[in-house]
């Protein structure tokens, strides 16, 4: 049994989660703001984290804010936006040394919590607007960030695969927003959006570390409070995409190694009963170094250094990644497709199934040794709209049968094959 006690309270229009753990020498606080993906707001949501890091009422510049963090024993602040299923989530993370482990320190915790409140609720403003100078500067930073995905060829190929695969779906939206939307954004508009976000987003606060739970909760209720008039909208399910014929997209760049990324629809989501069978499926197919993809693409045929797969739990996608020699495209593709066929035919041993289950369970347990891992795992339940404790997850994984894996495999459909290859490396069929 895993001992992980999450105390949940809904108060002040905020969902509070406290987790007491003696494992760590620091305290981790994460505040999450969640809203549905929307082309109208995505660029503003991508820009907001950059603006909020530029200072608060009392620490009115990035430098002043960072000096305060340094003074709190090098507390680490990060604010980022991410896409989870059809949601966009802004996470404010603050990690600071637990005063228990520092001689003669008693105020780090209080000061750090207060600082985080200020970063979220009392940013630096000029009346009812963010300073335009800061907004313009941060627009440039975001613009560079949007552009730089092109520099990381694995991330780029992944983005292009989702572009093609999820055309006209919410999930197609880019986490970092769009350069063409930046021109229209100014300080006043950003401030308006920020105000509505504070009211309308679902807000969750997680605190993890070695502290007294009751005292911590009281402190949190005192510090974090907001007025919210609107019930947060939950991302609703989109219609099931019907795949008539799978897509093949080939693009070129002056690169040395081709990236072969393949997207499938699993038709199975976090909420579904066969989600656990899908987890085991992925472990057998491409999740581990013992999986079919690694063994066949890499070990047996020396075609790649990496060949793996992962599942997206909220939309229901299975994504395969590998880096290959351009001229080996067809060979690699055939081997990957052959592995999928074997998965559907149930070509794996009971012992392999049991090994994979153990690996999944042990991976979960290891996640629980990392503070951010614990918080992300707990938040998964909020996004997936289903209560699922780590112990329940483990029990469900253990019970998956071979028959269930075959059934979940049969639901998987090939959607899009994306190849980024070197110029002159396109092989005609």
């Amino acid at each position: 049994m895993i001992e992980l006690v999450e105390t949940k309270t809904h108060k002040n229009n905020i969902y509070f989660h406290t987790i007491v753990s003696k494992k760590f020498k620091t305290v981790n606080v994460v505040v999450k703001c969640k809203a549905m993906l929307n082309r109208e707001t995505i660029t503003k949501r991508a820009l907001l984290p950059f603006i909020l890091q530029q200072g608060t009422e009392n620490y009115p510049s990035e430098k002043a804010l960072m000096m305060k963090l340094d003074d709190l024993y090098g507390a680490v602040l990060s604010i980022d936006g991410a896409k989870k299923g059809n949601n966009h989530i802004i996470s404010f993370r603050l990690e600071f040394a637990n005063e228990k482990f520092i001689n003669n320190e008693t105020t780090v915790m209080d000061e750090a919590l207060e600082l985080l409140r200020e970063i979220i609720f009392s940013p630096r403003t000029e009346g009812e607007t963010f300073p335009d100078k800061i907004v313009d500067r941060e627009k440039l930073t975001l613009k560079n960030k949007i552009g730089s995905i092109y520099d990381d060829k694995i991330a780029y190929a992944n983005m292009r695969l989702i572009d093609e695969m999820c055309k006209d779906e919410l999930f197609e939206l880019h986490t970092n927003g769009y350069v063409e939307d930046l021109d229209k954004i100014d300080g006043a508009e950003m401030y308006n959006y920020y105000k509505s976000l504070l009211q309308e987003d679902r807000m969750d606060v997680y605190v993890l570390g070695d502290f007294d739970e009751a005292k911590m909760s009281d402190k949190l209720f005192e510090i974090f409070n907001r007025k919210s008039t609107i019930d947060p909208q939950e991302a609703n399910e989109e219609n099931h995409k019907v795949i008539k014929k799978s897509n093949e997209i080939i693009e070129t760049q002056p690169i040395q190694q081709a990236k072969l990324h393949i997207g499938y629809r699993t038709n199975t989501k976090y909420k579904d009963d066969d989600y656990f069978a899908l987890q085991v499926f992925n472990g057998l197919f491409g999740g581990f170094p013992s999986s079919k993809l690694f063994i066949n693409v890499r070990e047996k045929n020396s075609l790649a250094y990496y060949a793996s797969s992962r599942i997206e739990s909220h939309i229901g996608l299975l994504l395969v990644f590998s880096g290959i020699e351009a001229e080996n495209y067809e060979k690699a593709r055939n081997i990957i497709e052959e592995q999928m066929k074997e998965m559907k035919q149930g070509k794996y041993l009971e012992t392999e199934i049991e090994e994979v289950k153990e690996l999944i369970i042990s991976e979960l347990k290891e996640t629980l040794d990392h503070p951010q891992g614990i918080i992300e795992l707990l938040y998964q339940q909020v996004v997936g709209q289903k209560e699922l404790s780590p112990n329940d997850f483990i029990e469900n994984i253990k019970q998956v049968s071979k028959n269930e894996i075959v059934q979940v495999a049969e639901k998987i459909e090939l959607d899009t094959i994306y190849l980024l290859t070197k110029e002159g490396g396109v092989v005609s069929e």
Partner: protein
Amino acid sequence: MNKLTYDAIQETIYEKKLANGLQVFLLPKHEVAKTYGIFMTNYGSTDRTFTPIQKEERITVPDGVAHFLEHKLFEKEDRDVFADFLKQGASPNAYTSFTRTAYLFSATKMIEKNVETLLNFVQDPYFSDESVEKEKGIIGQEIKMYNDQPDWQSFMGTIKNMFKNHPVNIDIAGTVSSISSITKEDLYTCYNTFYHPANMVLFVTGNFNPDTMMAVIEENQGQKKFPTLDGIDRDIPNEPEHVAVKENVIHLPVSIPKVTIGIKESNHHLTKDEFLKQETIQGMLIDYFFSPSGPFFEKLYEAHLIDDSFEYSTTVEEDFSFSLISSNTEKPEVFANQVKKMLLNTNGLSLDENILSVMKKKRIGQLLRLMNSLESIANQYVNYYFSGIDFFHLTTYIQELSLEEINEFLKEWIDEDRLTICKIQSK
């Protein structure tokens, strides 16, 4: 078995040097689910010219052998060790750096068995012509993957600019061409010389009983025979103080140019005390000047010369050390010149007690954060061990640093001849 207690951070380590020379450290932690083990040799990509064990003459092996060897140790005559670990619920991994090669696993069950598997697979090499050939395709793809990564190219490009003779200027994995000439004999030669227990360290941390664990390890090692090893003769080329190349440009398909400024920090062999001092002060100084709370960051940011890709790092090894400052930038020339100017001006600055106190706090907070993770504790501890330093003493060392020491270091820190610039841009 000796017991080392560290009161300030509330940790206890058990250590023993075994009869065959292997140094073992055990750090039990009962509140975690997992155990992490790392078995490391003091051997990396820069150890390319040396005298093989029980031989008289120095040889030079093909570039990329240490990394190639790391890959091939997992493969045995009849099986792949990855699978053994996975069957025992463990996930194994390995890495090769300029100066070290490490094999590791994490597991939540069968801990003692997994420690034995770790020792046994590393101490039982099997290399064949066929499997060496097969690996060339896989490593070839690994090299090409790195060749397409602007961040890695910028890192290696800057190091190549800095170092004229030291083999740190060679890619860790070698090149597609250099690995093509690697033979199983090369692998055995390097293995026999550098994988001797006296050149290795084992660190296990997690949920286990230290007495039982030490007994298991000792018995395992007692069953194996090794020749005696009286130190290893490694060639350390003479490295000039100044950089080899002041500036270069690498063409890659990128959306925005990337510029790295390299500071060649030292070119001679550091003693243990020099190492400790250089690493601590160098790290604290670059962090002080270039972090968002420092005097330089805001100027660069306000002038639109950097974005959120801006980063800096410092590396200290016994025979080479350097610091890197890099960013994506629309104005490569201006950014590079501005950073150079800032660095050159530091000679005239001196820090005060307030600044020092914040620098120390920040560094201590960083160390405590590292200690949250079993992996980073173990990795750091063994890495420092080979340089004669106790990782858990670092917090105390930092607290004791004096303002005089830092200001004295600062005066000599930067010299124009030790600076280089590497640019990555599209054609």
